[in-house]
């Protein structure tokens, strides 16, 4: 498609073709997975398969929204590229010419430049960092009361080794002008409707200048797959993936606040507690991630052997700071007990970390047990969901029940 923008005529034509080609809903979709979304609909297909991907939960086919099945997180702290979640706001280009690709740097800079991929790769020292990339809406489908938007389970996250150069080294190619305040990114994805807001995101200058904020071309030792933003994407360790702009093509240094849609009007959450139906509350952008922990060894409702030892395992992370500890906690507000878990190897403050715990003998059902992560800043996962109308930044203690038999 030479012009991805759609006119009304094209919309109708496209829809007609889709309707003719499509079988009846629900037929021949093969395998489903149940995400346990309260009130449903909770089943999601594991098809169709996407190029370069293994089995994924298909939340949306066009533009792609693919969720990682929780079983993948059992396997290690690195999420393989072929199982890593995929999220596009607008239609993604399906072809990128490496030789023709340019990254334009403009705005509040001394000298606007247009850089080739080689210019970017040689802008500074090559840096590798292991970091979690998590959608701001991860776990939205588990919100109670439910909210609209992509109905993710908890699989809109992954941890990869990202290879690239520091953003600040690339910015130095243009030089920051006096008054530079924020750095805004745009990719090759463009709105499908004329006049709709482009998906552009900005970060404050102090974040942009961090030593670990990268323009990455490598993901787990491979070139970024197109679905993950080939040829370049922004990496902001500790911050939600909405800022990790894919298919980077434009960097704009702002000397004022960012009034664009995806910063000023959405990807925001309330500054204080709100209830469903509340209106006109103050909001701030959703930025740094809170700590989270998950049990990956057992699914909710699984049977365990009565009278036998039980090994529980999972993953955790500290969010925008390293993980300090993980505790197994009882129902409700801790249930009066907590047992510290053993942490696995530390792969850096922004990576998944394994945890495990052996219960010497199972004496009864384990009802609504959870794991609570606490980061080095002392931020702990809350026992109650911090509900917000967009279902952002889920961080509540995740719970399961196990039947002893």
């Amino acid at each position, binding site marked *: 498609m030479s012009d991805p923008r759609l006119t009304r005529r094209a919309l109708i034509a496209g*829809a007609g073709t889709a309707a003719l080609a499509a079988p009846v809903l629900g037929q021949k979709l093969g395998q489903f997975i149940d995400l346990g979304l309260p009130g449903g609909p909770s089943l999601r297909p594991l098809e169709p*398969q996407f190029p370069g991907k293994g089995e994924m939960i298909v939340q949306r086919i066009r533009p792609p929204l693919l969720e990682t099945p929780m079983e993948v997180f059992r396997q290690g702290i690195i999420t393989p590229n072929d199982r890593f979640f995929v999220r596009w706001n607008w239609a993604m280009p399906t072809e990128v010419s490496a030789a023709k690709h340019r990254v334009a740097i403009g705005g509040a800079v001394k000298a606007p430049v247009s850089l080739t991929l080689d210019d970017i790769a040689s802008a500074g020292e090559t840096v590798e960092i292991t970091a979690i990339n998590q959608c701001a809406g991860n776990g939205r489908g588990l919100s109670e009361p439910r909210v609209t938007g992509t109905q993710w389970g908890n699989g809109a996250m992954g941890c990869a080794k990202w290879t690239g150069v520091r953003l600040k080294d690339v910015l130095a190619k243009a030089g920051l002008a006096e008054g530079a305040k924020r750095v805004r990114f745009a990719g090759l994805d463009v*709105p499908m409707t004329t006049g709709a807001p482009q998906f552009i995101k900005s970060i404050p200058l102090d974040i942009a200048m961090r030593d670990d904020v990268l323009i990455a071309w490598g993901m787990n030792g491979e070139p970024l797959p197109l679905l993950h933003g080939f040829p370049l994407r922004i990496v902001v360790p500790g911050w939600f993936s909405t800022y990790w702009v894919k298919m980077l093509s434009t960097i704009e240094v702002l000397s004022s606040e960012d009034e664009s849609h995806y910063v000023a009007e959405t990807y925001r959450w309330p500054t204080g507690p709100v209830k469903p139906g509340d209106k006109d509350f103050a909001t701030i952008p959703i930025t740094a991630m809170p700590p989270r922990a998950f049990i990956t060894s057992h699914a909710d409702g699984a049977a365990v052997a009565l009278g036998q030892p039980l090994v529980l395992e999972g993953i955790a992370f500290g969010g925008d700071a390293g993980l300090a500890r993980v505790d197994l906690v009882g129902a409700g507000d801790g249930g009066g007990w907590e047992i510290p878990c053993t942490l696995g190897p530390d792969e850096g403050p922004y990576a998944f970390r394994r945890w495990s715990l052996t219960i010497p003998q199972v004496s009864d059902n384990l009802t609504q047990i959870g794991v609570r992560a606490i980061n080095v800043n002392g931020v702990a996962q809350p026992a109650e969901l911090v509900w917000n109308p967009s279902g952002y930044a889920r961080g509540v203690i995740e719970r399961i029940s196990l039947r002893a038999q």
Partner: protein
Amino acid sequence: MRGRFWLPALLLLGACDTAPKVVFEDASITLPDDPNDLPEAPGREAVLENCTACHSPSTMLQQPRVPREKWEATVKKMIELYKAPVDPKAVPQIVDYMVEVQARQSDVSRETPK
């Protein structure tokens, strides 16, 4: 999917300044078609004509059940904010359809075997 780069051994050995750190190659991908369709109900044509170019039917059908007002607000948002070229006359039909289809959805998750 094509798209490869190479980290030459030179880099790992800390080699000369002129050697490229990575070699970027073109990439392309063919995305799958959406095999889903929308169930029959009044307003289906309006949804097909006005919504499905940007939204997979699957996405619409996977939303939690929400009141009519929420669907009205959602369609309004698509028109005003995301500039969806929706025929104004189709709006009530779209809303009717989503409300009807959602009303039919009992909790499918509990009824369909895994």
